[in-house]
């Protein structure tokens, strides 16, 4: 066990030191992608803008996300409130900016965690096979057997509200699907000749997984990531709607849409703005994912 750890650590170190190898190739690939794929380039721009908006929210707006102005409830867009106010008289633009913080975090953090868990378990299950495979995949089946919303509610109910618990819940929900896909990919790769050739030069288990199997899963993982980020944002908003998850007056985009639904006819701007932002963010992640997949898949490179 210890030995294995050392091996992995060395491997990692080697990769870090390897400054001008894959990393520069990676950079070159990205550059090429942006030149060729306008949608991906635009998506990166949009995502960067959203991140900047989230970071600089306090600078960009004179209001705070929980400033109530009860004399000014449900007012339509105006010079003072560019996107109008909600049922509590809070400035919607302000809440959108602050909401970006939570929604983006909720999109990215649990997705990354679930992909790390899923990729690790999936490759191990696929590679080792036998009883290891059975145990891991039956666990995944159990997670997948429950309706995901119900399971999310149960977990949230048990853990209690709060941002970290939302992270945990989403990670626990999503790893199983990732593990399944990665396991299938590993099974396919296991039978390729280059994995056999790698065995023929004496590559051992952990190194095989890290250097040969996982890099070949990368395009799949990127697609999973870009699909799971928007899904996580949406799941969070459903949880918030049900009163579990982010609590008002904190702002997340999903929460804002749900808050606005009672006033859909009298004050449609409450729903429209966050709804539109969710759509833009989801599309941006998807386009970026497509672009990344094309750029990182060596088979599709034409030099």
């Amino acid at each position, binding site marked *: 066990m210890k030995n294995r750890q050392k091996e992995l650590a060395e491997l990692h170190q080697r990769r870090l030191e390897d400054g001008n190898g894959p990393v520069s190739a990676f950079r070159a690939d990205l550059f090429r992608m942006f030149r060729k794929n306008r949608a991906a380039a635009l998506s990166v721009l949009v995502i960067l803008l959203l991140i900047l908006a989230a970071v600089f929210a306090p600078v960009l707006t004179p209001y705070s996300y929980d400033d109530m102005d009860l004399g000014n409830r449900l007012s339509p867009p105006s010079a003072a409130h560019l996107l109008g106010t909600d049922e509590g008289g809070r400035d919607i633009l302000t809440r959108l900016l602050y909401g970006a913080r939570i929604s983006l975090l909720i999109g990215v953090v649990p997705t990354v965690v679930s992909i790390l868990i899923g990729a690790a378990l999936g490759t191990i299950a696929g590679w080792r096979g036998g009883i290891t495979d059975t145990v891991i995949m039956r666990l995944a089946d159990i997670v997948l057997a429950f309706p995901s919303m119900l399971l999310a509610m149960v977990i949230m109910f048990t853990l209690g509200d709060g941002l970290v618990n939302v992270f945990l819940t989403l990670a626990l929900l999503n790893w199983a699907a990732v593990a399944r896909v990665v396991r299938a990919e590993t099974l396919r790769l296991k039978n390729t000749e280059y*994995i056999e050739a790698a065995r023929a030069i004496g590559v051992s288990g952990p190194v095989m997984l890290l250097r040969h199997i996982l890099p070949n899963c990368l395009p799949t993982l990127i697609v999973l990531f870009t699909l799971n980020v928007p899904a996580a944002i949406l799941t969070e908003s459903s949880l918030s709607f049900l009163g579990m998850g982010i609590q008002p007056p904190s702002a997340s985009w999903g929460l804002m849409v749900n808050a606005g639904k009672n006033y859909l006819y009298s004050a449609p701007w409450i729903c429209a703005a966050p709804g539109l932002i969710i759509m833009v963010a989801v599309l941006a992640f998807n386009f970026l994912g497509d672009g990344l997949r094309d750029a990182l898949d060596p088979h599709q490179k034409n030099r």
Partner: protein
Amino acid sequence: MEQNTLEISHLTVSFPTDRGGFRPVNDVSLTVRKGQIVGLVGESGCGKSMTARAVMGLIRSPGKVTGGQILLEGKDLLALNGKEMRSLRGNELAMVFQDPMTSLNPVVPVGKQVEEAILLHRRVSREEARKRTLEAFRNVGISEAEKRSRSYPHELSGGLRQRVMIAMAMVCCPRLLIADEPTTALDVIMEAQILQLMRQMRDRGTSILFISHNLGVIAQLCDYTCVMYAGRIAEQGDTRELFERPVHPYTRGLLGAVSSLDRKGEELETIRGSVPAPGSLPAGCPFGPRCGLCDETCRGACPEPREISPGHIVRCFHAGEVPV
């Protein structure tokens, strides 16, 4: 006497099936002497590749080596555990695969893959490994080694990729190289160059087990040749002896079926019938049903190997009866 590099005796590989075990490799014995190229020739499915895999310890479950012995310089390979075997693979024992298009990892630059083979078996720095990789690339005739080493497999031609595979196999100076049809996927010019490389390696002291179904290649390259049929070695002997005085009817059939410009206008000889399906081998001599000499003895029992002249071993009851 000098020690043999590889000594396989009575090797049997079995796969369990519904109707008992199926043996793709059955009682195979062969020897590769130091500095020798030994050819293993036969039709598709006769057990050539399976023999090679058995030596590498790469037989996939549910297949298993169920009998015999494999000695690499006197070391019993079948007695080693997984870790010991891993340290031999790529180190003292290397393999070149048939299809260079699919046997390199598509997402790793080829130079890195060769470096990996070095780093796995030698305690050297990264720079040293890199240096050796470039040297190995030059040795196998890759021009612009520096530039090529940073290429991904799909950016290289088939011939270059096979050279990379050979560089990878040779970089730790193995005792034994197993080449599993290394030229099948290449055109004849590349083939000639790869064969030349094989000879150079032999001259540097690596013994080679060369698997092919191309008799011409075997005749050119190998010092000693084994002809396999249905999991058994039908006939083996010095290449010259075997090609000039084939004894086993199967070997004769194979040699007769080689087309040649000298025999323009004649009908090509063939071996009638086809290879028996796995698991339904005939009783007695497996070649019996396709053989002109087959009689009651042949149908009754499988012939044991007989040495009819030094180093020339045949599995046939009728060996030597019919003049060549």
